[in-house]
């Protein structure tokens, strides 16, 4: 037992090292190509740990021994023995953007998340995860603006890249076999680089702003098994402020000669407020083979009192649902143990641009392939289609096809067989 613990500890250290190494990569690479990521701190990420991606990107009541559910820390209280789960995810996204007269395809793909869970005792476990919180990746070319005081126009191109990542420590514990409580603390960090190149006649100005944000967010979770076929999940995430600072480099081309204008570091930015969130959902298992989740989440963006250059923040509601089917988890045939999933969601969005809410809607399919009979390790593959925005007026309609691949490796996989 002692030996086992030591091994687990050394494993944790190794993984934490990896997490910190990958965090630097995770925050520089692009995971989105959406022009809407210009607003706020980017669009919410489409990546997920475990199987949530295929279940409509939610599942607050989901719990189980074989997977990590980051949506609700209470799920870490699932009863088990010597559990260790390691999860790694990738996201590939092909989006096609369309406005009233043009269409364009953009591709973004990357490693997206890392997470692990380890049990403390039979009733509780903790987990550490690194996953994107929001992504920024926009390229706006040929923005025409009026030169004040004349009838002339100037053109600018704006490019943004970056991401906010969350490093989350979760803990959950079960009480009286029916109730699980959990808490999490997330350290959000990341940077967004925006480059604007302005062309006015033969002159030009380039402004490169690198904004870094960081802050802590706390969340609490509850899961309760009302009946053997019905569970309820509830979480709150408390509002928080992300403090920001910015490095700015300004250059210009004046009379055909390039010259520096300014290079400032550590400019204080207004903090970015994350709203209070309430999430809840139910999990229904009418038969052993089928489980259904229905979720609703509400984020109080309006209460943050924030404004953005063009859009307004509005309260965001997300409705989602998902279903998972497995023929026989103990089956001898491989296909009997394959999990089939499907889900859908509707997200009102948190932005309103000129009176038009940027809502999105999506559906997903997924398959969970078991890696072996003895363990719960799986490869989860899911496909999600999201339609966001609108072609009304000047807005952009996005159609995003994303493929989420993640590998969930469960305890036995890491441990020596008792009989070698």
């Amino acid at each position, binding site marked *: 037992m002692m030996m086992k613990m030591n091994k687990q500890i050394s494993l944790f250290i190794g993984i934490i090292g990896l997490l910190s190494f990958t965090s630097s990569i995770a925050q520089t*690479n692009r995971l989105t*190509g959406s*022009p809407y990521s210009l607003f706020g701190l980017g669009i919410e990420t489409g990546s997920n740990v475990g199987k949530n991606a295929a279940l409509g990107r939610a599942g607050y009541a989901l719990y189980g021994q074989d997977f990590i559910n980051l949506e609700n820390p209470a799920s870490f209280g699932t009863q088990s023995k010597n559990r260790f789960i390691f999860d790694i995810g990738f996201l590939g996204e092909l989006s096609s*953007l369309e406005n009233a007269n043009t269409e364009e395809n953009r591709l973004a793909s*990357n490693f997206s998340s890392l997470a692990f869970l380890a049990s403390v005792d039979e009733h509780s476990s903790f987990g550490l995860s690194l996953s994107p919180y929001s992504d920024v990746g926009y390229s706006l*070319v040929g923005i025409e*603006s009026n030169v004040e005081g004349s009838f002339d126009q100037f053109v600018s191109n704006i490019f943004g890249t970056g991401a906010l990542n969350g490093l989350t420590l979760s803990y959950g514990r079960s009480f009286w076999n029916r109730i699980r409580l959990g808490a999490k603390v997330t350290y959000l960090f990341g940077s967004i680089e925006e480059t604007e190149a302005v062309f006015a006649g033969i002159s030009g100005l380039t402004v490169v702003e690198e904004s870094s944000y960081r802050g802590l967010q706390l969340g609490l979770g509850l899961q309760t098994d009302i009946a053997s076929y019905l569970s309820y999940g509830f979480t709150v995430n408390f509002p928080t402020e992300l403090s920001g600072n910015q490095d700015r480099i300004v250059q210009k081309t004046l*009379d055909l000669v390039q010259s520096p204008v300014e290079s400032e570091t550590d400019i204080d930015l207004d903090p970015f407020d994350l709203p209070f969130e309430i999430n809840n959902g139910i999990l229904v298992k009418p038969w052993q083979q089928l489980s259904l989740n229905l979720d609703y989440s509400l984020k109080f963006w309006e209460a943050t009192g924030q404004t953005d250059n063009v859009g307004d923040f509005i309260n965001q509601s997300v409705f989602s649902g998902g279903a998972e089917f497995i023929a026989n988890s103990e089956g001898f045939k491989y296909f009997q143990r394959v999990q089939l999933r499907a889900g859908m969601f509707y997200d009102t969005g948190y932005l309103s641009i000129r009176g038009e809410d940027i809502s999105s809607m999506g559906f997903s399919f997924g398959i969970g392939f078991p890696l072996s009979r003895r363990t719960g390790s799986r490869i989860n593959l899911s496909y999600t289609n999201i339609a966001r925005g609108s072609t009304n007026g000047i807005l952009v309609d996005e159609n995003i096809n994303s493929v989420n691949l993640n590998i969930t490796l469960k305890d036995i996989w890491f441990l020596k067989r008792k009989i070698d």
Partner: protein
Amino acid sequence: MKKLCISLGLTALVVACAVDTSEIPTLEVGQEFVDSNVRVVTTDTFTVAVTTFKFDSIVTSGTDRLLIGQYPDEYFGQVKTATYMELAPLTYSLPSDAELDSVGLVLGYDNYFYNDTTQLSVLNIHELSDELRVSDNVFYNTSSIDFEPVPVFSYSFFPEPIDEDSLFIKLPIAFGTELFNSIQENTINSVDELRESFKGLTIQPGESDASSVIGFSANPSRSYLRFFYSIPDEFDDIEETYDFVISLSGLPKVFNAIESDVTGLPLDTLIDEEINLPSSQSNNRGYVQSGIGYVTRIQFPTIKQLFDIPGQGTILSAILQLKPSPGTYTDLTPIRDSLIINLIDQNNRITERLFFGGEPVYGIINEQLEEFDELIYEIPIGVYIDRELNETNEIDDAFVVFPPEFGRGVDRILLEGENSEDFQAKLILTYAIYDDENE
């Protein structure tokens, strides 16, 4: 343990293979609902202070152009130019039996003229009574050399600087006989010996001339003093020539004295280089005249008010528009299509040229406006304004505008000043504000 290694190795592989396709898309999607974070403002409200001053002297030696003539100018008074030159032969030997037939001065037109060439002009050719000696290696428009009061010859003509190639002025043979004989007899064997008896010529315009200033070439192949002589032969005389030319090497051997009489005109007050005449005291105009040394001086006394615009910004372009006063330029007194820009210090001394993308700045006639019969010089002075805005110490510098070939002609330009009723000299600034919030 083996599986642990595999899993960590897999993770490392995954991280290493992270794909990033952050190509810049070329299609234009999404920009309509976005505004630039940068504001660009254009303004032309800054004061342009237009003044005139006169350089005490400008270098006129080393030129390849002889400027001769006189005319009255409504704005610049009586303009008079005369040329001074030392002439010498290349060799000091003549055949002993050569006989001088005649002597004449050939002046090749170099196509330059200013004012009315249809009027009769006079060229008074005088012998210099003093040597063409320089004090600091150059001659100025204000230099002068003593000459014999009685001209060798006085020549009247109607200039044809474009249609004719050159002018031939036959001089009295008496002027050449002694020189010719001295060289033939080897009494004159060098320039020094030549100067004892012939120091050079000056060509002065007729005292009452009211015609034009004409440019002749100083090139030895175009202008020279020619001796025609013949050598008696058995059947027919052999005719030969012997030339005195302006030496183009060594110390300058030619210069133009250019002067004007501005009595009763606003320019009359400019007796010193450091005096600036505001355009408000000179008919709301700035004056420019080549040869004489009048230049228009430009300053922007209120430019630092640009910083009153809230936010942080920087200028992206600065164009100065100057309009030549309508009616002051004609076919006889044309203006150049470009202006040279030089920086000057507080004492009105030229310090450096202004550059635009590595090339000197010129004021160029705006062709778009020209189509509307509006002749306006545009001068890109972004670099200068940027420097003025960012200078830490208040320096009372300025820049001056004048036409090319400033020491080789008498071209004049009148420029509308800041209070002109026709067109106010103006500075058009394009200013980009990249930070609206912080001061």
